[in-house]
């Protein structure tokens, strides 16, 4: 990335988060402080034929909204409302230039309903409504109508890196001068096709408990949720006297060409994104206080990410605190990158580190300071990694304004 010395600073002025740990920032923080989890039997569809039978499910509140909103869009809407409230933004009045949202599955459960009826020969008028509501861009249109905003929404779908890429695209839009104020985020809800897919790959932990960086880890647990961040150029934030929570200072994305689903064991693409994101933020590895890792809990992912962090940080690796919050809330797929960026903002604001839960014996590949219990800490710079099927790697860096 060519340095852009005149690029505007990008501030985070609002955050909203919905996960199985809670429906807002406060509830998620409390759960992280208490090492709480909410993995429970999946009751949204039949999992009796699957090896795994649990996931991090959200207790979705019954809020007034359009009936055609998918479960995932409702999660996102909850996060959006919290982020807007925290930023003090009214979308009907504020000059928000764009939304960039990441998702992997979109409104998959609506597509599943459509397909089931077609398979059964139930071709009729109800199908048109399902076809319309299934389309992810239509869901975003319905959601923005709920909050009274009309503007361009870009949907990024890079599997599990989608949310991080959406946050990063917001940074690019402001740094390039295309936008002053951008709402970014990511979401995914649980769906039968995706759950069955990960189960077929034997990627889900049979026990239902994800153990990232444990020597005997045996897979991930799926979760669902969403996060939204309000990004503003410094000038835009100052113009409305907004309170900034953190600064988004670094972003890079690269592609791991090793395999469609398995990472390069050396973590080459991750090394490149961490290096490039640090260069944009003008930081060196030892200045990163905390890494919210991709940390899924699968044998291949955690080994590759550990190798990448070790190579990238060199002899300073032992100073860097790392944890995986997927151990508490599960893997949110297209929502993960945005949710984990939100957790980084929470950690920067609260000066604490969330834990990697369920670790019984630390894997020998771990060379960094694996945070196994919630703890207060000085956190000036936080980095978060996201790696997706297809090889998309993304790294974001957020910094404290203290």
């Amino acid at each position, binding site marked *: 990335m060519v340095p852009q010395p005149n690029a505007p600073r990008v501030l985070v002025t609002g955050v909203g988060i919905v996960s199985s740990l809670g429906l807002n920032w406060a509830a998620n923080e409390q759960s992280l402080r208490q090492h709480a989890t909410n993995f429970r039997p999946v009751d949204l569809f039949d999992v009796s034929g699957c090896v795994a039978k649990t996931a991090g499910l959200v207790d979705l509140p019954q809020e007034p909204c359009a009936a055609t909103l998918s479960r995932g869009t409702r999660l996102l809407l909850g996060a959006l409302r919290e982020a807007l409230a925290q930023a003090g933004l009214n979308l009907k009045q504020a000059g928000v230039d764009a939304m960039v949202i990441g998702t992997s599955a979109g409104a998959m459960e609506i597509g*599943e309903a459509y397909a089931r009826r077609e398979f059964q020969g139930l071709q009729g008028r109800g199908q048109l409504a399902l076809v319309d509501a299934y389309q992810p861009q239509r869901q975003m249109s319905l959601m923005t109508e709920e909050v009274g905003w009309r503007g361009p929404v870009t949907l990024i779908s890079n599997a599990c890196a989608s949310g991080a890429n959406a946050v990063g695209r917001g940074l690019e839009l402001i740094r390039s001068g295309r936008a002053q104020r951008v709402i970014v985020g990511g979401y995914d809800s649980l769906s039968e096709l995706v759950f069955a897919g990960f189960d077929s790959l034997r990627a889900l932990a049979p026990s239902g408990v994800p153990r990232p960086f444990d020597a005997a880890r045996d897979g991930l647990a799926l979760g669902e949720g969403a996060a939204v961040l309000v990004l503003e150029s410094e000038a835009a934030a100052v113009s409305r006297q907004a309170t900034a929570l953190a600064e988004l200072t670094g972003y890079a994305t690269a592609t791991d060409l090793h395999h469609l689903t398995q990472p390069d064991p050396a973590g080459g693409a991750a090394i490149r994104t961490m290096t490039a994101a640090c260069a944009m933020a003008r930081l060196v590895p030892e200045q990163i206080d905390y890494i919210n890792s991709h940390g899924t809990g699968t044998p291949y992912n955690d080994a590759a990410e550990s190798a990448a962090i070790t190579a990238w940080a060199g002899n300073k690796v032992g100073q860097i605190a790392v944890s995986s919050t997927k151990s508490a809330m599960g893997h949110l797929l297209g929502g993960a990158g945005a949710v984990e960026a939100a957790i980084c903002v929470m950690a920067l604001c609260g000066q604490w580190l969330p834990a990697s839960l369920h670790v019984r014996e630390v894997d020998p590949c771990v060379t960094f300071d694996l945070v196994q219990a919630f703890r207060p800490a000085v956190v000036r710079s936080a980095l978060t990694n996201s790696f997706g099927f297809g090889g998309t790697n993304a790294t974001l860096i957020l910094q404290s304004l203290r």
Partner: protein
Amino acid sequence: MSAATSPSRILACGAVSPAGWGCEALLAAVLDGAPLPVIQPECEPGKSGVLGLCRRVPSPSPAWVPKGQRFRRCSPVTRFAAAAAQEALDRAGLKPERLGIVMCLMNGCVNFSNRFYSEVLVDVAHASPIIFPETVFNAPASHVAAHLGADGPVTTLIGDSDILVSGYEMAEDWLASGVITHCLVIAAEEYDWLRANGAHYHHRGIIASEGAAALLLGAGGAGPAVQQVVGPIAYHTQAERVQAVAAMAQALHWHSADWLIDDGIGLTALDRAESEAWAGCSPSLRLSPKCILGHTLGAAPAFQMVVAAELARQRQVRVAVSMPGNNTAATGCIIGC
């Protein structure tokens, strides 16, 4: 959004369409103006019927078949995208070391999704782990990236036709930042009976289609460029769509263009917004690729852009492109040299 100043150029294009494999086949069919033949597809055994007609991409000659390990079991949409991308690079005579890719889709790998979900419903314990990764939206981009050795920024956008312009702007930003030297902006879709039935519910006259188109962008060089972008102008309802398309047409400098490539599909109800917006434009100056090719969903705006870029390159003309979108946003642009 305000446009960033960029010297990026469309260095070359590629296309795979019902007209054949290659840009020239696409351009010839669109300029000829005669709708391509349609077929009545058959449904999979044991499934319900297919409701509408379609136009399919013809079988390729061996030279057009993308070769490589990743293509052994990939979806048609991936093969179309790879062939279009390779054509663009070959026509430019380039093998960029720092190549970015933006893949634009509306439906994506719907054949594999259909197949995998069918297996799940029959017996989830025997659903194929080989198929599932191919259902993910960014599988085509991943395969194309691996084929071309593109290990930098590669992203997949999903949505209405405005994502092509969003993708174009994303590519421009990457080029301007210096992280890449060239970028392929690709849009692709594949035929599937489930998808075709979905289109049929919207209007029985829609002819489902498939294919891919690719624009190779470079930071500078010779070739056409996007000279004006209007939108995306978002809308929530079909009534608002009419207003959005009218606003787009009013802001677009189409009077100075030699051609207008619209989104018309030849169905009065669906074409109403554009019919009103472009009432002042002589029909002799208008091209309607969808009337010839069928409805290719996310690939349709890329076909428009490729035709526009090739006309601009070959005839030194300015071409207006109207992308009213299906259900969320209207966009327009001017392409010229």
